[in-house]
């Protein structure tokens, strides 16, 4: 299977939905991917099962402030600088590039990076969604130690880090990112295909493509999206309040949706820290991280990133189960509600919804 220039719009729509509000706006990534595929040709999309045990897989993502990356576009030289450094450190050729994070722009741009350095794209990622911190990845949950992290900024500076833990990786990458202009390319994990098995979330590039294609069939787009995701609709209504602020390097805040139509008379609040993390109604939790929460346009069914939420928008709030890996005790320790400072115990979204249905 190949990813072509024509696949990019569907991939982008799918990645936006999986971004659960974050991961960076995909519209910046689309021309980057289109340019690269036009210039270098289609990229092979390979499942993990097709890679030899000793093939080198590099998990790559852009790290930075979404508003900054809209202004500070990347350099064509960054992926090549990364490849040189990864191969210098490992002494091996790269076998495949993997998205560290399928959600948002970080799910789209790896296509360009794979095309630019001439290697396949792995049909997998490290989150199955978007998360704000470098250590919130499946590899960390699976116990793969962070070894070498390579950070390449827009002017070509390469910083190679050897952090002692995922937390240190996050702290150091953030410092280098800020120094490098708040928009950098990061190879966060370098691992063999053997080590990747069970430590990555497989099939997520195909899933994003499937989501994007479901929006292109015609008919009721919202119903098609819900069916494709296996998602429940928590509310359909109008955005009546958006409260956003930045703190600790994140967008934090909440958005209030007032129900319309069959949802009339109801109010629901979505708590945000870059991504949509918790949905509350009448003081009770309706869904919470690491389960997936996406605010989509009520008609077009396209995902609305947290930064694009505006008063008056007609939206549907969808929730669906995360990958089982995130529901393990270690998964919840890394990316459950407590990891984001919420004093609440995680309960799967399918149990919570039925309480109020």
């Amino acid at each position, binding site marked *: 299977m190949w990813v072509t220039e024509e696949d990019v719009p569907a991939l982008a729509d799918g990645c936006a939905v999986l971004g659960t509000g974050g991961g960076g706006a995909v*519209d*910046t990534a689309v*021309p*980057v991917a*289109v*340019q*690269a595929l036009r210039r270098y040709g289609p990229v092979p999309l390979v499942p993990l099962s097709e890679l030899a045990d000793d093939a080198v897989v590099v998990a790559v993502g852009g*790290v*930075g*402030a*979404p*508003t*900054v990356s*809209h*202004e*500070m*576009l*990347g*350099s*064509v*030289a*960054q992926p090549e600088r990364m490849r040189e450094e990864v191969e210098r450190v490992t002494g091996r050729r790269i076998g495949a590039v993997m998205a560290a994070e399928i959600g948002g722009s970080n799910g789209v741009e790896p296509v*360009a990076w794979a095309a630019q350095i001439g290697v396949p794209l792995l049909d997998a990622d490290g989150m199955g969604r978007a998360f704000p911190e470098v250590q919130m990845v499946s590899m960390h949950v699976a116990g793969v130690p962070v070894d070498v992290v390579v950070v390449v900024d*827009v*002017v*070509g500076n390469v910083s190679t880090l050897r952090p002692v833990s995922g937390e240190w990786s996050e702290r150091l990458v*953030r410092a280098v*990112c*800020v120094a490098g*202009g*708040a928009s950098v390319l990061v190879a966060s994990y370098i691992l063999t295909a053997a080590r990747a098995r069970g430590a990555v979330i497989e099939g997520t590039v195909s899933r994003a493509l499937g989501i994007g294609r479901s929006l292109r069939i015609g008919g009721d787009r919202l119903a098609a999206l819900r069916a494709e995701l296996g998602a429940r609709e928590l509310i359909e209504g109008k955005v009546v309040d958006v409260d*956003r*602020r*930045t*703190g*600790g*390097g*994140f*967008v934090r805040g909440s958005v209030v949706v007032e129900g319309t139509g069959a949802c009339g008379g109801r109010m629901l609040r979505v708590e945000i820290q*870059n991504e949509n993390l918790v949905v509350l109604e009448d003081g009770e939790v309706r869904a919470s991280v690491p389960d997936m929460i996406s605010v989509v346009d*009520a*008609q*077009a069914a396209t995902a609305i990133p947290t*930064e*694009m939420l*505006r008063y008056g*928008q*007609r939206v549907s709030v969808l929730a669906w189960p995360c990958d089982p890996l995130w529901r393990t005790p270690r998964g919840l320790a890394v990316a459950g509600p407590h990891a984001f400072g919420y004093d609440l115990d995680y309960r799967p979204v399918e149990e919570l919804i039925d309480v109020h249905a």
Partner: protein
Amino acid sequence: MSTPDAAGRTLKVGIDVGGTNTDAVVLDQGDRILAWAKRPTSADVTGGMREALSAVLADLGPAASGVGRVMLGTTHATNAILQRRSLGRVAVVRIGAPATTAVPPLATWPADLVAAVAAGSAIVEGGHFMDGWPIAALDEDAVRRLLGSVAGGVDAVAVTGVFSPAVTDQEVRVAELAREELGADTPVSLSHEIGSLGLLERENATVLNAALYGAAGEVTGALDAVLAEHGLDATAYFAQNDGTLMALEYASRYPVLTIGSGPANSIRGAAFLSGLADAMVADVGGTSTDLGVLVRGFPRESALAVEIGGVRTNFRMPDILSLAVGGGTVVAGSPDAPRIGPASVGYRIAAEALAFGGVTATLTDAAVVTGRTTVGSRSLRRQRAAVRDLLTAALAASDDMVAGGVDRMSLGDKDRPLVAVGGGAFLIPDAMPGVSEVLRPERGDVANAVGAAIALASGRWETVAPASADRRAAIEQASEQAVDRAVQAGAHPDSVRVVEVTETPLSYLTEPAVRINVKAAGPLAWW
């Protein structure tokens, strides 16, 4: 409503220059329509404006001396881009290498528009990070090389620096270099004067602005000349993309801001004329049909980046879907596979359309053949059956296009009325799926001009503030600045109000910050 000026002048003239027709209306103090006229838009723009203005002034008689203000709305710039004509050739300078090379300038543009506009482009070293730290020193030699290579084949220069809204000096320096290399007569568009953060969208808007100087000069020069001819000592305003007004001199430097003003005015005019506050609006001109949505008396704004002629920009604009369906739209193909537009005979319709004795089949002819209108001077009965079949099939295809567009714009909100305005409103059928009824208000043919005449003056202010407790104070300060600017633009101090506050957090920085954009607007005041 407006108040008289010191000389007691209370009348205002709204003029709309469309691709096909130029409309003029005169409104009194109570916004009653005293006179109106519709004349063909001339190739030189001036002729049509002169004709339309002369007609309404003649209607007024001695009362014409009461005209104190002229508001001009025009789709001239939009049409220039859509039809790729009257566009200047632009040298595109992006300051940002080695960053930003992943997407070169104009890479996202349609090929035919690039061919019409691009004189040459380069990403030169320079630009800044958000905190002001340089990406690289400005590579002046590279700028001079690009400008030298295009000298003689370039009409304007567009300059876009990374984070120039925060650090403007390199863009200003490139403007100096352009004067040295190309002479002071070559206009230069600087991105920090045109758009906000978002490199590609701001760059696109800046290049379009540079490409439009010629088209803008045609319009502003014409208005100046026509006012002088009539001895009118009236203040001139141009309608801009958010449906508010800007001064003439300002409009000639930022022609791209007039893009979208036509649709905004037609929606506001349609609201005024129909008395409706919530409706779909179809403004059918000679070249295109603009579909918009009226929400509580104002155009619904697009939440997304707006595409103009296939190019993304980041202006806040009315949410408009533009279809290549207009009275002058050229019909081709066969009855089995009719082709509609995008070419239009435009203002030459009265000479070129079949119904006027010409040889070009247009959608107006299609409307005549099917009995939707009776314009023209020649019967189409004697046309060959194949031509009549083609016209009939073309109108059916046009109806499908409009119905599809209405469906998209309805966002599922069915059964609102559709207000059909503009000179080509007869192309819209009397019934359509998804709308409760089709309304054709009196004087709907000059709705754009009415919308221009009743437009507000506005001001904007943008700032970046720490995302702390000071944020509230920063919003208040920005609001005061925006109100001041609106008053400077002509708004009445007592009625101007803040109509929009947009906050954009800038996350992942050592010092958390938020970008604050405030817009204030109000009715024009006389002093």
